[in-house]
């Protein structure tokens, strides 16, 4: 098969970008992954003396969260529950035209072409996405029983790969789904209780400080998420946040 690609090219964060059009070779194999198709196009660009299209990618098996681009308006392309590296060319038709863009969000400035800066996510985690347990200070693992349903649900939240598709899909470029997945994974476990309020407040504050928008319930994030993280976690985080705020006020209001 053969396709026409309109690819966003942008030299760096400070220069304007534009779409450039490339014709793929005509032997694109339906079994290729989308990124392998781009590899083939890039090899041609290099031999023609040009600069290849830059994009983030690493594990190419849908778990590292490095890859991500908007294909025809959809983060990670048309396949549900898959990252761009798991998208295969058999999902497209011969002769199709594709528009390929980077994540677009003020929290994710473009570095080059399709590569964006997602370090904001790390800073949100640094603000409280952990349980403070010094190496060596843990009790025996079976001393903290956790019901299977609860453990499974924590795992559902923890499955987030931090790719940023939720932000790219959201009309407000909100990072609520990412933050909620991180917050709720730890908040619902017994180990996460002592720092629950502090964690929730600090992570939400950092999320706001990074310039991500608010959530207005479009649910586009859930549809775009390659790990199908549920927006229920957003509601739960909002509840945790309100409770934490109330408790914080009570602490402040208490006389010595």
């Amino acid at each position: 098969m053969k396709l026409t690609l309109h690819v966003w090219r942008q030299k760096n964060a400070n220069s304007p970008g534009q779409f450039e059009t490339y014709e793929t070779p005509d032997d694109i194999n339906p079994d290729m992954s989308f990124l392998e198709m781009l590899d083939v196009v890039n090899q041609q660009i290099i031999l023609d003396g040009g600069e290849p299209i830059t994009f983030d990618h690493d594990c190419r098996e849908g778990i590292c969260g490095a890859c991500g681009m908007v294909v025809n308006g959809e983060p990670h392309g048309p396949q549900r529950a898959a990252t761009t590296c798991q998208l295969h060319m058999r999902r497209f038709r011969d002769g199709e035209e594709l528009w390929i863009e980077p994540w677009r969000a003020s929290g994710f400035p473009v570095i080059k072409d399709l590569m964006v800066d997602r370090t904001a996510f790390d800073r949100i985690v640094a603000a409280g996405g952990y349980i403070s347990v010094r190496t060596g200070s843990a009790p025996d693992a079976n001393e903290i029983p956790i019901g299977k349903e609860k453990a499974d649900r924590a795992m559902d939240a923890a499955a987030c790969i931090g790719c940023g598709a939720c932000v790219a899909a959201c009309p407000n470029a909100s990072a609520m789904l990412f933050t909620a997945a991180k917050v709720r994974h730890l908040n619902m476990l017994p180990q996460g209780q002592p720092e629950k309020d502090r964690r929730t407040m600090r992570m939400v504050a950092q999320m706001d400080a990074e310039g991500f928008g608010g959530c207005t319930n479009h649910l586009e994030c859930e549809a775009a998420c390659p790990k199908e993280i549920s927006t229920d976690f957003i509601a739960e985080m909002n509840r945790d946040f309100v409770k934490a705020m109330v408790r914080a006020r009570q602490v402040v209001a208490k006389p010595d």
Partner: protein
Amino acid sequence: MATLDGKCPTEGPIEKRWEKHRFDMKLVNPANKRKYKVLMVGTGLAGASAAATMAELGYDVTCFCYQDSPRRAHSIAAQGGINAAKNYQNDGDSVYRLFYDTVKGGDYRSREANVHRLAEISVNIIDQAAAQGVPFAREYGGLLANRSFGGAQVSRTFYARGQTGQQLLLGAYSALERQIDTGKVEMKTRHEMMELIVVDGRARGIVTRNLITGQIEAHLGDCVVLATGGYGNVFYLSTNAMGCNATAAWRAHRKGAYFANPCYTQIHPTCIPVKGNYQSKLTLMSESLRNDGRVWVPKHEEDTDKPAREIAEEDRDYYLERRYPAFGNLVPRDVASRAAKQVCDEGRGVGPTGLGVYLDFADAIERLGKKSVEDRYGNLFDMYQHITDDNPYEVPMRIFPAVHYTMGGLWVDYNLMSNLEGLFVLGEANFSDHGANRLGASALMQGLADGYFVAPYTVGNYLARVQPMSATNDISKDSPEVKAARKEVKGKVKRLLEIEGKKTVDDFHRDLGKLCWEYCGMARNEKGLEKAIGAIGELREEFWENVRVPGSNESVNPELEKASRVSDFLELGELMCRDALERRESCGGHFREESATAEGEAKRDDENFAHAAAWEWTGENATPVRHVEPLEFEYVKLSQRSYK
């Protein structure tokens, strides 16, 4: 040739040696710890856990990774699980049994003292991870679940669905981010280590390239810790991430660190077969699938083109169950991979290329029900279907071995320090714990053991003996060694960009991979290895004359990054073949055709090869020198491994 000393403690019973060693080690005064600068390269399980732990202790840590976030290191992709001798299942497991299994599984080519320490620490890792909130699989009563994994006859593997590596790494990453937040760790993402700085025989710094700006800068400290993973990508196609590379380890090797057992590479039996020339990487299907899936090929060559479901039961050869009745489908990785190669060599392989065998879940679905199979393997089945467009609930999976892990790596002593003072090597990047073959669910265990529980002590023991740089100011960015290292990196980058040849980096990498796979893959022989050594040398020469690296240094340039890594693989690949050539025995992942039993099983030669080989760099295009570290076995009885 010199004989190396692993500095393993030898006094007292083996169960007490690590404890005694820990007591004997020097401590750094708590108030002085912040004066020591630790340079940590890599943020996988070993790097992230070591950086976090050393920062908790009070050291001043700077941490580097090439990814955009420390959370993306390739440990994230480990699927199956992590071993620990908890004996929660009451099935007779113990520290001693895990130790014994690991030494045996490694085909008696690892150090007893190291492996025993690993088995002891395994239990602490599970405690640590559970306390961090790692959502391990649990039973209805709330206690941790286990499964049997990859050749073990006890259930000692802990797991988090098929994403155990991801969850353990996110645990270590969260600990690391906590320290970044407190300011104890300075994190430098999108920085690649390009050179090691050695001053007066001590590792004192590294040169990095900033992958956004191209800036080449030196970072100095009191010690350098490499946790930079394995070199599987020398084969081009492997289950490693695209960016995994050996540059940090290789540059250290060129600066004097010995490289041990490079020929020990693990070819994992259950991967999705290669489809076409465009293929960029191979995908592992977790070994846990072999717990319930049955491996088979048609008995007759003429049936290989028939749809699997049309081949009658009596025309199928469940070759692992037939050859190894005691272990069946759960034989260790090296044995399973070789058996797959043999049936494909006989012309009985399946799929379009004939390089594939079936992994069939029909019996498991009948026995357990589709729902149970989905609960256990759902995400793996989905992943398989994404890639192949086949539904494994209905047709058997097709699998084939692929390069997955490298047991070889930089030589280290019991303290995880290389022969270069102040250079520590952790996780897959070192060589010491898995011998010639790594057992399933042991990589995560080793990475975290090194990072959480070994290096923080042993690095401290080293630092206690040296004056901190912050007090002595003995080196600076203007020191001659530092300037020379930066100049070397700049020179290399400039040279790569100026060649402007006609072949792309990927062309060379693919050619190198083919040579390594063909001659230094699942089976090796003298003639082939000699041929490969010559051919790799020629390929390297051609690379430096004809590679095309577009763009410039001063911007994001993934082709330049790849070119630099491939130039190192072109040297490492040759050493790998050389090591395989000199090791004239079969052991673990290293199968020499000249050293086999009449039944085609691997034959070890303990008389001549019960040692680790550690190679010393002697210059470009010069023959490296092979040193040996004899391996002594006090506790484990050497025997020919048998899974029959």
